[in-house]
């Protein structure tokens, strides 16, 4: 085992124009303090705020959260929504892929023996005017997600969805996305009726398990219910 903790090149956040570079050894605390993350990816900030506790955020890194590939990894739904890409290196060669391709299952990734996660890249996406992230856990800190849900929306001035991205955590072996619901919401106003219908689809898409924290049934129900958080308030996303 090799400790990467002291390699400065693997740390920090840099604005590289089109995209943002995040060093995988950057701690959650440092990300929370980063104005770049705050400006460009507020949804990631929401996830970081409810991750672990201050001591864990001081020690834990975003690269660790990715490579651990837990279905409950708190930063994973936002990274999926933001279409994050990662860079892997071994000796002289490197490869770049989307996080969705990288994570295969609980604790399973495409990381090859001897390979190191060396960068995370996220393209700026200013068109999204609305974001939501929520974690349902047994308590408000130091809790492993029972269900988590994130959304990025681009809506018109009168509240019609032009583009939607949705992701659920802790309800399947990996983060769940639903192109079907995303397509369905396009062109709609987010009324309770529309979202109830989307919730039905979500309940069919997720593949949760029973464990010590909650039943599969509860996770499935709540995964659908959390869509209702996107409901319009006064004709606009709240």
């Amino acid at each position, binding site marked *: 085992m090799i400790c990467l903790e002291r390699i400065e090149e693997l740390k920090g956040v840099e604005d590289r124009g089109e995209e943002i570079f995040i060093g995988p050894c950057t701690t959650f605390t440092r990300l929370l303090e980063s104005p770049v993350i705050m400006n460009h990816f507020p949804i990631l900030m929401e996830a970081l705020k409810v991750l672990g506790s201050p001591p864990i955020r001081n020690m834990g890194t975003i690269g660790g959260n990715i490579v651990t590939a837990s279905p409950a990894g708190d930063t994973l739904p936002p990274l999926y929504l933001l279409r994050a890409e990662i860079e892997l290196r071994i000796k002289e060669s490197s490869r770049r892929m989307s996080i969705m391709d990288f994570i295969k299952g609980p604790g399973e990734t495409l990381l090859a023996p001897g390979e190191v996660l060396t960068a995370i890249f996220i393209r700026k996406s200013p068109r999204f005017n609305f974001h939501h992230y929520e974690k349902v856990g047994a*308590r408000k800190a130091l*809790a*492993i997600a029972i269900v988590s849900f994130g959304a990025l929306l681009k809506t018109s001035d009168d509240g019609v969805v032009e583009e939607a991205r949705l992701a659920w955590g802790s309800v399947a072996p990996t983060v769940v996305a639903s192109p079907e619901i995303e397509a369905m919401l396009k062109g709609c106003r987010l009324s309770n009726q529309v979202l109830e219908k989307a919730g039905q689809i979500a309940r069919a898409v997720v593949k949760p398990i029973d464990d*010590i924290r909650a039943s599969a049934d509860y996770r499935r*129900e709540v995964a659908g219910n959390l869509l209702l958080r996107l409901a319009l308030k006064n004709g606009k996303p709240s």
Partner: protein
Amino acid sequence: MKGEKRKVILKEKKVEIPLAKEELEVVGKQVIRKDGYEKVTGRLKFGADFDKAGFLHGKVLRSPHAHALIKKVDVEKAKALPGVVAILTAEDVPGRNGFGAIIPDQPVICGEKVRFIGDGVALVAAESEEAAIEALKLIDVEYEPLSAVFSPVEAMKPGAPKVHENGNLLTTVRIRKGDTEKGFQEAEVIVEQTYSLPFVEHAYMEPDVAMAIPHEDGTITVKGPMQAPFTVRRNIAPVLHIPISKVQCVQTHLGGGFGGKEDSSIDIGVRAALLAWKTKRPVRMEYEREEVTLSTAKRHPMIIQCKVGAKRDGTLTALEGTIYNEQGAYASLGPIIPPAGGTHAHAVIMLPGPYVIPHVKVDGYLVYTNHPYGGAMRGFGAPQVNFVHESIIDELAEALQMNPYDLRMKNCFELGSVTATGQVLDQSIALKETMRSAADQFEWFKRWRPPPSKEEVEKVEKRRGVGMAIGWYRTSIGTFSDGCGANVYVHEDGSVILHTGITEMGQGSHTVLAQIAAEELGVRIEDVRIVVPDTDIVPEAGPTVGSRSTTLMGNAIIMASQAVKASILEAASEILGVPAERLVARNRLIFDRDDQTRGVEFKEAARRALATGKRMMGQGWWAPPRPSFDVETGQGYPYFVYTYNTQMAEVEVDTKTGHVEVIKVVACFDIGRAINPILVEGQIEGGIMMGLGYAMMEEVLLKEGKVQNLNFQDYMIPTAMDAPEIVPMILEDPNRYGPFGAKGIGEMPNIPTAPAIINAVANAVGVRIRDLPAHSEKVFHAMRGRRG
């Protein structure tokens, strides 16, 4: 009140206690914690921080079976492992092979059979921890599994597997008052429900440690975080087959106890002592977090059926209850020693709540099962039954369409009330005042409204509600062993040493006890040093439990302080030429009450007292008025005084997830006199957080006898982020028998919190949770059930 003095009888001895705050210099004041500096700077050593050099490492081999006969234990391979010094099995125990806080029914090392997953089957001592762990794997135990029983109701049935030879029913305690049949005939509304409470882990931050050091003169010292060093000593002596006088127990600073280290320090202390005794070398044992959760005592789970009847106007006419109290594998602090005592008797006594009810019938069964065992945990049986009476009173209020506050106010205790055990409450009872003060602060009447219809709930994403609960709690254990002693030594420079066996667990008792000594002697708190409780040095104190330390030990300290103070005042009298009766000692000065310009420094008087051969030590011994309790009828005076409490909670329930957020808790207490108001507030806030955990997340999950959530990743306790706004309020209705009027506070705060929160949930979303904890999923399913 100003200037008023009340004659107080302290065990045959008349003592004048100033009851006016204005007259006190140290008591009732904010002082710096005795252990504060060392704790906040991280310099204080807890049990695990002591140097391990020179110690062998002790480990326990634990049973993987909930119930099984031990056919064979083969230790040869383990013994041959380099570094292993001893492997002990049941036949190696020189004396009694059993320990326990009340009944010694738990084997130090199991010989014939195991009764729960975690039972000790062999002990190992090795030169290194690694060798000890390796040796555990090499011990070959052959078991013959027996069918096991995991529920008290099942365990009571004929033909159930017998956990112990004499059967599974360990203790039955009843209350018979009046005629409940008649009482229910008089009732116009009757509510009947069943409630259930889970096993709960204390989750003290510091896992258990014991260091045992045998000496060449045949004595042995055991050090560790002990909540009750005298109870540990009492258990080690018969196991080693030596007199109590040859066992020394020395307390290290406790990183939390909550009742758990009353038991666990016996468990680990006896085993470490046995290993040290047999190897003739110092042995250190430390239980891992998982071992603590697996094998030490927990809060008793209970299933409780309860029925109450009332007139239309809310007047209570009758209460009946049946308690199935799960003891688990061993007796621990469950059973009763007449005239009272044990968690179980306390639960039975407390089930009718702080209400005047003419007809009461309670049957309480304490039953062995093959689960881990129940013991003392902050509230000693009261949190369980308080949840029941405070839930059912709210359910009754709903049936009567009354405000639950009014129903409580109509029926609850006041001066002169008679309890279900026939005890007349003749002093220090301000329960109704705590209700009024809490209601004013909380704005109860502005905020309470009847529970909503299901349509109203469905309309909103989040809905708020309010709930309340009241409670009472004893001060003292209420058994014959409640006496406690203190020694006070004054030195020629005016400094003071106080010997007390009450242990500091973070609750602040050493600060409070030093305040009492300083006040009585007329010195400053920094002049008083409390030595570490050491059974070779300090007088018998009983255990640090039952919210008894301030009140019982406080009285012993007052007596001891007065005894030595007499010498100091006599010396001052000689210096000043003023009769000793006229002298007052305060803030390091001794002066003439009638002419306050005439005085002498305390230390000067102390110097003269020593020089003139006066007695420089004082001893005190105090026990409360002797309790009485009949286990068949439940009649008697089991405890001499009670603390009273009202809590009001506001919650917000997420109708889409079932998540409950506690927004605010107002908690008002009648504690007689707050010796240290800041520490009292600390107890209140900590207790409420513990009660919040009990309400919403804490539960030891068991599957076929096996604990599923052994560590803090899976066992949930509330974090600081889960803390609501807490408003602690203190009322002081002086206790005639307490030092400066005090009574206990340690346990009361965590008791009514859970029902207050659960009542608020019912008020918010119209669903009632009758089995704790009310985690999100349970609340969610209850709401969905209501939707149909």
